[in-house]
C-alpha cells in the first residue's frame, strides 16, 4: 500500500520519502543545495531552517508557526545535510530532540488512527489495528476505575527496539499487556515510540570519515547560501555554547584521571551529558546522588546539566541542594542493573564484571555498589602511589 504524498510532506522522515521524492532525495547534496536556494522559495527555506536551529539552541520544544507543506521535505533534507556538515554531537542532539518533539506534537494534534497506522506500516513496524477498540485492562483514576482501551497492538520486538531506550518503569515489558506476541499500546504511547524513532534517525554519530567530510565542506562552502546559513548557525551557537561546554573543560577533560575512578554506569551518564543527550529521571537522580556522595560541590553538579535540552539553572540548583540535604544514597548495582543503567558489559570493565579481592575466581567478592567501585579504585591508586614513592625513596638512599 502506498502512503499519500501529503503524509510525506508532513512527516518527511518516513522511509517512503525516497519513493515520492526520488529525484530530490537522490541528488548529490552539493547540487541539491545550490539548486534549492536559487528557487523562489529559497529565502523562505532559509528562514525555516534557521528558525529550527534557533529554537533548538533556545531549548524550545515547539515552533510556533510550524508548517507541514511540501517545503517541509526540503527543510528535513537540508537539516540532515547541515547536521552532517556541522559535525557536532551537541548540536545534533539538540536538533534531534526538538525535531522529534515537533513530530510528537503534530501526530498528537492530528489524532488520526488511519494515518498513524499508515506511518507504522511505512516504518516497517508490525502493528495490528482493532475496530472497535479492545479493552485490555483497568486503570484507577481518583477512586474509580477506568477501562483501558486501544485500537493498536505492536509486536514485542518492535516495541522493545523503540521503548528500551526510554527506560521509564511503566514502559518495561513486564508492566504491559502482552498477547500472542503483541503489546497493547495506547495511541499516545505509540506516538512516543515514533518520536524516539525520529530522534534516532537524526542522530547520525559524529562522522568517523573526516576526510570525506572535509571534501564535502570544501565543495559546498563555495555555495554562497550555504556559507551564509552555516555562519549564522555557528554565530548563534557560539553565543550560547559557553553555557554548554565550559564545565567539562574545567572538570572532566583537564582531570581525565578522575574518570578512571568512576564506574561505567557513571561514565555513561557523563558521556551523555557531554553530548547533550537527554537523561531520564532515574539517570538524573543517580548521577546527582553519586556525585554528592563524593562531596562534589553543588554548582559543579548543576553545571553538569547545563547541556540538557530542558535546563533551568534555578530549578536544578534547588533540586540538587535538596538532594544534598536529604543525603540520598545512590542506587546499588542491582538496582542499576534492573533499570538497564549498568554498563559493565559494554565497557568490559574488569572490576565490575569479575569482582575484587582474591585472585581465586570462586573467592572473589562481587561489586555491589558503584561507590565501592570508586573507593576500590582510589585505594588501588593510592597503593600504587605509595609503592612508587617508596621505590624512589629506596633509590635515593
Amino acid at each position, binding site marked *: 500500500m502506498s502512503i499519500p504524498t501529503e503524509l510525506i510532506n508532513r512527516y518527511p522522515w518516513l522511509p517512503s520519502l525516497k519513493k515520492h521524492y526520488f529525484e530530490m532525495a537522490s541528488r548529490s547534496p552539493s547540487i541539491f543545495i545550490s539548486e534549492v536556494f536559487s528557487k523562489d522559495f529559497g529565502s523562505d527555506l532559509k528562514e525555516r531552517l534557521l528558525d529550527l536551529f534557533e529554537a533548538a539552541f533556545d531549548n524550545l520544544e515547539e515552533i510556533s508557526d510550524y508548517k507541514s507543506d511540501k517545503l517541509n521535505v526540503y527543510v528535513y533534507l537540508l537539516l540532515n545535510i547541515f547536521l552532517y556538515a556541522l559535525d557536532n554531537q551537541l548540536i545534533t542532539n539538540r536538533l534531534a530532540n526538538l525535531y522529534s518533539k515537533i513530530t510528537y506534537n503534530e501526530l498528537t494534534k492530528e489524532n488520526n488512527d488511519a494515518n498513524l497506522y499508515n506511518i507504522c506500516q511505512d516504518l516497517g513496524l508490525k502493528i495490528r489495528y482493532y475496530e472497535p477498540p479492545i*479493552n*485490555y*485492562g*483497568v*486503570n*484507577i483514576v*481518583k*477512586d474509580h*476505575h477506568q477501562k*483501558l482501551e486501544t485500537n493498536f497492538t505492536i509486536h*514485542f*520486538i518492535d516495541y*522493545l*527496539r523503540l521503548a*528500551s531506550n526510554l527506560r521509564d*518503569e*511503566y514502559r*518495561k*515489558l*513486564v*508492566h*504491559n*499487556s*502482552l*498477547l*500472542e*506476541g*503483541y503489546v*497493547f499500546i495506547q495511541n499516545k504511547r505509540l506516538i512516543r515510540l515514533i518520536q524516539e524513532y525520529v530522534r534516532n534517525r537524526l542522530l547520525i554519530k559524529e562522522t568517523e570519515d573526516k576526510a570525506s567530510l572535509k571534501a564535502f565542506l570544501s565543495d559546498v562552502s563555495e555555495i554562497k547560501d550555504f556559507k551564509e546559513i552555516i555562519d549564522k548557525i555557528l554565530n548563534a551557537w557560539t553565543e550560547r555554547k559557553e553555557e554548554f561546554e565550559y564545565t567539562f573543560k574545567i572538570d572532566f577533560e583537564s582531570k581525565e584521571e578522575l574518570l578512571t575512578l568512576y564506574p561505567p554506569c557513571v561514565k555513561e551518564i557523563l558521556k551523555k551529558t557531554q553530548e547533550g543527550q537527554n537523561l531520564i529521571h532515574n539517570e538524573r537522580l543517580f548521577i546527582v546522588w553519586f556525585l554528592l556522595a563524593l562531596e562534589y560541590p553543588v554548582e559543579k553538579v548543576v553545571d553538569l546539566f547545563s547541556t540538557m535540552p530542558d535546563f533551568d539553572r534555578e530549578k536544578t540548583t534547588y533540586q540538587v541542594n535538596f538532594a544534598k540535604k536529604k543525603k540520598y544514597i545512590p542506587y546499588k548495582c542491582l538496582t542499576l542493573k*534492573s533499570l*538497564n543503567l549498568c554498563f559493565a*558489559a559494554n565497557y568490559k570493565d574488569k572490576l565490575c564484571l569479575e569482582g575484587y579481592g582474591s585472585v581465586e575466581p*570462586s*573467592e572473589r*567478592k562481587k561489586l555491589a555498589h558503584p561507590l565501592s567501585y570508586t573507593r576500590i579504585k582510589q585505594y588501588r591508586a593510592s597503593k600504587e602511589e605509595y609503592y612508587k614513592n617508596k621505590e624512589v625513596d629506596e633509590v635515593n638512599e
Partner: protein
Amino acid sequence: MSDISYLKRLFRTYYKEKRSEIPTVSSFGHREFGYIPWDKKIIMKRHMSFKSQDSITKHLGNEGPRHVYSSGALYTQPEIPDMDGKGYQGCDFIVDIDVDHFYTPCKEDHDFWYCKECGKSGLGMVHKCPKCGKSKIKTSAWICEKCLDTAKREIIKLIYDFLVPDFGISISQMRIAFSGHRGYHLKIENDQIRNLPSNERREIADYISGENISLEILGLQEKSGTIYSFSGDTYGWAKKIIRKTYEILKKPNSEIQELLSEKEKFNFNKNYIKSFLNSKQDFIDKIDNNKYFILPSIEGFGMTNWRKFFTGIVHEVGVEIDTPVTIDIHRLIRYPGSLHGKTGFKVQEIFPDELDDFNPLDEVNEKLDPIVFESKVQTTQKLEVLDAQVPATKIKGKTYGPYTKGEIIEVPHHIAIFLLCKEVVKTI
C-alpha cells in the same frame, strides 16, 4: 590407571560408538565451540570452530572431553579469539533453568554446604554462612528426582504460560534439552529474536521471571484508605497474578496455610494466616463477582502485607530462570548429545510433547535415556568413599547410599561412573 584417565577413556569410547547418534546444532559452521578437558585445573578451551558435524564427533572421539559446549551466538569467524573480531551475527534466545539457582525444600536432604572461612557446614541452601556471615561457601549439590521434576515443571510453565500465549513463539522454534545434571535448557531459534541486544533480552527475562516487577505500576495502591488491586480481565501480569491468587484461594485451608508460612516464599506468621483464612471466602466471592478491584479488608493486612502477599504470588507465577545466561549473548551452552562431566549423563534433547513423561533418572524410552553407561550385563565396581557425607542417590528406581567417608561400597557400573564423576569416591 587413575580414575581420571579411566573416565576419559570411557567418554572417548562413548563418543566413538555413538558418533552417528549425536545430534547437530543449526547453523553449525557459524557456532563457536568449547570444551573442558580432564585436567586438574579447570580451564575451558574456547574459540574453536568445525567445518562439519563429522569433524566434531571425530574430535570428541579423540579427546573425550569432560564438558562440551557450543555458542548460542552465530559468528562469521567463530574461531577468532577476540570477541570483537568474530563477526557477531546474532544469538539464539537461551533460557537456563537450573536447580542450583533456586530453592527446593528437598535440598535440606541432599545439598551440603561448607564454610571455607570458619568451617561450619550444614544441609540445604545458604548464600552466606549463618555462623560467620561470610559468603565463602562451598556447596556440593546432588541430583534428585524431585528437584528435576521441579525444573521440568518450570520449563513447561515457561513454554505454555509465557512463550506461546504471551510471546506468540511457535513450539517448532524451540529446542529443549536436559542438561545432564540439575536442569534444563531451552533455546529459541528465530531470526528476529536472534537480533535482540542484551538489554532487550533482559526485558524478556524480567517478563518471564517477574523480576523487577512493580506491583504499584500494575495497580496495587492505597488511595484514601482503600487498597486497590489488579485487573483480571486484562492480559499480562495483572491477569496472571489474579488467576494465581484465585487458584490458591481454592485450595484447602491446610494447603494454604503451609504455602503462606513457607519461609522462602510468603513467610507469614500464624496470626496473619489465620485472619487471611477467615476472609478467604470473601476474597473468593469478590473474584467470582469481578469485584476484587478493591481488596477485601483482612485484619492486619495493610499495604505491607498485601505487597508481601502479592510478591509471593509473583514468585509462584514467574519462571525460575538464570537471568545472566539469557542476557549474555556470548555464552556457551552444553552441546546436545555430549556427556556432562559431573555425572556422566548425556545432555538429552527432548521435544516439548515428550516433556510430560520424561524422567531423566528413570527414563523408559531408551532413545531419551540420559544414563548411557548402564550395561546390559550387571557388572559392579568396588569403590572407597572419599567425602565425609555422600547423600542417597536414586537412579533407575533404586537407591544407593547415603555413604560416609571410608566406606567400601560395591555398586553397578553406571552408579560407579556417576560417583566417580562427582569425585566423591575412588576405585580400589
